[in-house]
């Protein structure tokens, strides 16, 4: 597994070399064949037909001269009718070849694009099901390059390289067969030359492969450096660091030039080397064959040698073509390897059975399931005996001696116990890395705990279906993420069936309505590039609106207002407090004004809750919270 922890200036790119190319090709063909078996067969048949037509047309030259022109030259009154018939016959073969080529190309377009589409769809659908952990351990750039580079090289391979190679192999086999019939020893000579070609190609593939690998790494290094420097371009300007930046870039850029030059140099040399070796093979065969024919060895005739040499010549170009395709095949296989590896990643497991349903109290006061949205929800628990129990969703969250570590060896949260009752506002404070965000990621099961229990309205969250669990929790995350689409669509992301009015109401609640209306097209303004045209504060307001429209029973705000000025924050907070009356809110913030009115404040340090209580209680305790709040250090903790 490629972990992203290495020196980031030189990201380690996945290798070009593939461990088991045979199995990989098999799997790839299997994948294509699953959906496009008929098309594959058609393509293969078409290739056979067009190779046949090609062979017919090349052989015809000899027939033309030997069987028609030579006799005609000798005859007194030349009759061209048989020749015309022969030409028409070959013409029909050719027509078949042309049609086959057309069908092949047409089917290939659908087959290639269809396979790419299936791959993309499968990749995307599968990616959506992967656990968060996958995204933690794989760089986003690497995942992205699967969708772009790897799929692109695969297109080249499916639409060009594979049919081309099949074509070449059929040609080679048929030519070799014809050669064998003509003369065994001479075929051996030819084969020796072919072996030399293969060896040379292999050497060149190896050389260029090494440099392609290096090139790939250097590209990674250059891209990484560019990304880092472009991100900090304004800092570069402020510190007048331009000259240094140019010099640093030059080093990496020169390295890339070197590997790109060498990689392409050897790749470009394939074709001439193979072709000229082919010419050499022709000469050797002509000489050896000439000696054999003249000495009458094995009954080999001059006519036979002429045919043999023609075949030898037509062996050249398919071998040359294969050698040309080799590089793109190797690159494409490396891509296919990465694609399948992503598809093989284990999906997020969901063994939960408890589901979330809309509910209402019947006349007799019993909670019952209903279709429409009532603002009331219930957990539907189906017991093993088939009986169904409805538990009203209140937002009651308890942590019972919870331990957690991102890796089992390193526990980051120790023995966390807490109790949040409906309507309470629970705040987490503590330094960076104390585990605040981690706790909230456990409630929605982005990660699973190692030990202890988390209960939601008394139900163990492991028993709740993940989708339903998350639907019941509104989250506003530390990093805002907006999606390409209109402002309205981005707010509606919170709840797909929300009306325009509901979305606008949510925006008003989040105090986002004002700036949205000032955007060029108001709520219909299209946001692109993660809302690049909005300020960080505005993006936060939008993500709050998105959570507000979801109208969840439990809300988790992770540094949700950190970039909003305190006056605006106050307005937003009042709105949120009104929305969350009677519901549970978890707040993470480093700004005190955000958390002061919480019912309970948990002070976290190094994965443990070290203090808890209301603002006033904690101040009275004169502990860590007091120290953070007032900026004064208690006497016994003096340091620095």
């Amino acid at each position, binding site marked *: 597994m490629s972990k992203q922890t290495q020196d980031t200036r030189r990201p380690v790119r996945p290798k070009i070399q593939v461990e088991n190319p045979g199995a990989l090709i098999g799997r790839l063909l299997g994948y294509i064949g699953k959906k496009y078996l008929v098309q594959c067969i058609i393509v293969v048949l078409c290739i056979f037909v067009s190779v046949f037509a090609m062979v017919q047309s090349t052989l015809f030259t000899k027939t033309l001269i030997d069987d028609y022109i030579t006799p005609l030259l000798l005859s007194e009154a030349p009759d061209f009718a048989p020749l015309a018939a022969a030409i028409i016959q070959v013409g029909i073969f050719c027509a078949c070849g042309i049609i086959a080529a057309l069908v092949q190309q047409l089917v290939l377009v659908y087959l290639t694009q269809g396979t790419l589409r299936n791959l993309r769809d499968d990749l995307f659908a599968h990616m959506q099901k992967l656990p968060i952990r996958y995204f933690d351990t794989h760089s986003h750039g690497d995942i992205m390059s699967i969708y772009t580079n790897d799929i692109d090289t695969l297109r080249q391979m499916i639409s060009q390289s594979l049919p081309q190679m099949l074509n070449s192999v059929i040609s080679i086999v048929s030519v070799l067969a014809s050669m064998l019939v003509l003369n065994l020893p001479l075929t051996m000579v030819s084969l020796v030359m072919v072996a030399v070609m293969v060896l040379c190609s292999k050497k060149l593939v190896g050389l260029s492969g090494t440099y392609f690998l290096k090139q790939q790494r250097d590209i990674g290094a250059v891209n990484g450096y560019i990304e880092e420097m472009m991100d900090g371009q304004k800092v570069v300007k402020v510190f007048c660091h331009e000259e240094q930046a140019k010099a640093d870039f030059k080093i990496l850029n020169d390295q890339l030039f070197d590997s790109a030059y060498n990689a392409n140099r050897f790749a470009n040399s394939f074709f001439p080397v193979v072709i000229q070796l082919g010419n050499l093979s022709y000469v050797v065969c002509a000489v050896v064959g*000439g000696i054999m024919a003249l000495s009458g060895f094995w009954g080999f005739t001059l006519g036979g040698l002429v045919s043999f040499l023609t075949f030898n010549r037509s062996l050249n170009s398919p071998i040359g073509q294969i050698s040309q395709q080799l590089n793109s095949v190797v690159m494409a296989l490396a891509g296919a390897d990465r694609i399948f590896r992503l598809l093989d990643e284990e999906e997020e497991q969901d063994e939960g059975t408890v589901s979330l349903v809309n509910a209402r109290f019947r006349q007799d006061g019993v909670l019952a399931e209903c279709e429409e949205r009532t603002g009331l929800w219930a957990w539907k628990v189906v017991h093993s005996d088939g009986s169904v129990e409805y538990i009203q969703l209140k937002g009651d969250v308890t942590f019972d001696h919870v331990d957690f570590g991102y890796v089992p060896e390193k526990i980051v949260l120790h023995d966390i116990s807490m109790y949040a009752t409906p309507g309470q506002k629970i705040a987490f404070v503590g330094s960076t890395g104390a585990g605040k965000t981690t706790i909230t990621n456990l409630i929605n099961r982005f990660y699973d705990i190692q030990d202890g229990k988390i209960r939601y309205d008394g139900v163990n969250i492991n028993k709740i279906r993940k989708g339903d669990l998350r639907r019941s929790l509104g989250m506003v995350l530390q990093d805002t993420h907006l999606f390409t689409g209109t402002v309205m669509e981005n707010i509606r992301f919170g709840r797909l069936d929300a009306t325009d009015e509901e979305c606008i109401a949510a925006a008003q609640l989040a105090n986002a309505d004002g700036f949205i209306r000032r955007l060029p097209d108001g709520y219909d303004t299209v946001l692109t590039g993660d809302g690049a045209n909005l300020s960080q504060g505005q993006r936060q307001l939008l993500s709050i609106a998105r959570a507000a429209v979801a109208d969840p029973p439990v809300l988790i705000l992770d540094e949700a207002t950190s970039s909003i000025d305190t006056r605006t924050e106050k307005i937003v907070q009042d709105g949120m407090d009104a929305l969350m009356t009677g519901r549970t809110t978890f707040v993470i913030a480093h700004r005190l004004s955000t958390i002061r009115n919480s019912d309970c404040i948990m002070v976290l340090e190094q994965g443990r809750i070290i203090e808890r209580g209301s603002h006033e209680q904690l101040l009275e305790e004169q502990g860590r919270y007091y120290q953070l709040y007032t900026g004064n250090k208690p006497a016994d903790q003096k340091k620095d």
Partner: protein
Amino acid sequence: MIKTLMKQIGEFKRDSLLTPVFMVLEVVMETIIPLLMASIIDDGVEKGDIRHIYMMGAVMVVMAVIGLIAGVGGGTFGARASAGFARNLRQAMYDNIQTFSFASIDKFSTASLITRLTTDVTNVQMAYQMILRMCVRAPVSMVCAMVMAFFLSPELASVYLIAVVVLAVVLAVIMRRATIYFQQAFPKYDDMNASVQENISGIRVVKAYVREKFETSRFMTASRNIFNIFVKAERQLVITFPLMFATVYACILTLSWLGAKLIVQSGQTALTTGELTSLLSYCMSILMSLMMLAMVFVMITMSIASARRIAEVLNEKSELKDPDDPIYEVPDGSIRFDHVSFRYNQSSEKPVLHDIDLDIRAGETVGIVGGTGSGKTSLVNLISRLYDVSEGAIYVGGHDVRSYDMEALRNQVSVVLQKNVLFSGSVLENLRWGDENATREECVRACQLSCADEFISKMPDGYDSHVERGGANLSGGQRQRLCIARALLKKPRVLILDDSTSAVDTATDARIRTALSTQLADTTRIIIAQRISSVQAADRIIVMDDGTISGIGTHEELLEHNEIYRSVYESQTQGGGDFDEHGGDD
């Protein structure tokens, strides 16, 4: 545009010229070798002349070696020229980006600059290599074959001429149509990839809102559209190969018929059988060359968009110019705004800053507060001339900022930007951005002032500890303190902190402020903050509102007279500090 790019070929002109030369040599060999082959058969094998076979064989080996040298040479020079061209393009763009003003950086956006430097350059590199290796080779090969064909039999060769013209016209039509489709397809393809990118980076949001299925179905719609549009585009090209085959076959058959007749009727005088064989063998090479040209043409059209985007970067000129006779020394830290108005975009109606008049004495501490978008950052960015004012003038140390050498000005007016960036490298390396000749002691001193020393000295390797890209292994507050230290090392006349202590806890923030005011008493300090406590002690506080100054005064004065200030203050009330950070220090 072409001219701009051509300039970057630079030292690879020689390679760029040699490539086609070698390719032509290879073509010549390619044309001669079939003749030798024919001669081996006709004059050697057929006549049983083994010595002729030896001789022609030897000649052919020599030709093959020359062909090999030419082919490998062409490949090598082509690779060198194109890789070198790409290198120069990247370097030239990168160098030019370094001269960009802030306005240009804003205009292009980071993401688009990255694509231009990477993907676009690769596209152009591939196209350039293609052009060098094929653009001369293919026509020459075609002409060679054509000439040989005409030499053998002008009547029959005219069949080729007709075929080539017909094929060229049809290919041109096909390519034209396909290009239009491809030009529509590629932006859509980029859009789809952008949406994948969004989903990867926003996966937590997707999962938190249980939108996996929704996003997948959205993606599938996009993916289906891509499928449709690419199938449509590629269907345009489907006909090319069969068409090419059809032409080849038609030529072969026509030549066979006409050739046979000609030979028989003239009794081998107008044309011999050997000549007919050679004629037929040129068929392939003529039509192949045409095909090659068509492919090069497609590649060029596809890379033109990339070339244009590269040229845009290369042609971008900074609108900020150093004056002819610049001043290199900022005499003191006084700052004066004289009726300054500023807009980021000349066409935008409402200015970001409107008619600002302001006088700051040297050594004064000035705080700036105001809501999001009130123009605080824009105001300070004008001081070090990161942007030029639209109207009015700004004077630093009594001189107009436009009369200074820009580098000198920026070195003496030190800004700690809101979006702070650290670079991968050691702590010391990052600090020395401020002053590359700073001694270790000076760096430590600066860090002590910015309260960064206390956490750096606790890092495993102290000042030699590795900082990851963007300072990813440091907390927000630690990054900010390091950035302040970096700015201090410039020993500036004016120090501007743009919301630079927002992630630092209240107590440390206070200590930094005290250190700065005692140790850098002569330096003018401008502090932008969200937190009133950060500016409370300043000599004067400026309250910004909607691009204008709503009030200036001390904390007490503003509390009394300025409503905005009062309401900001009340929203934070007493201590009102921030958490975070402190834990890391103990």
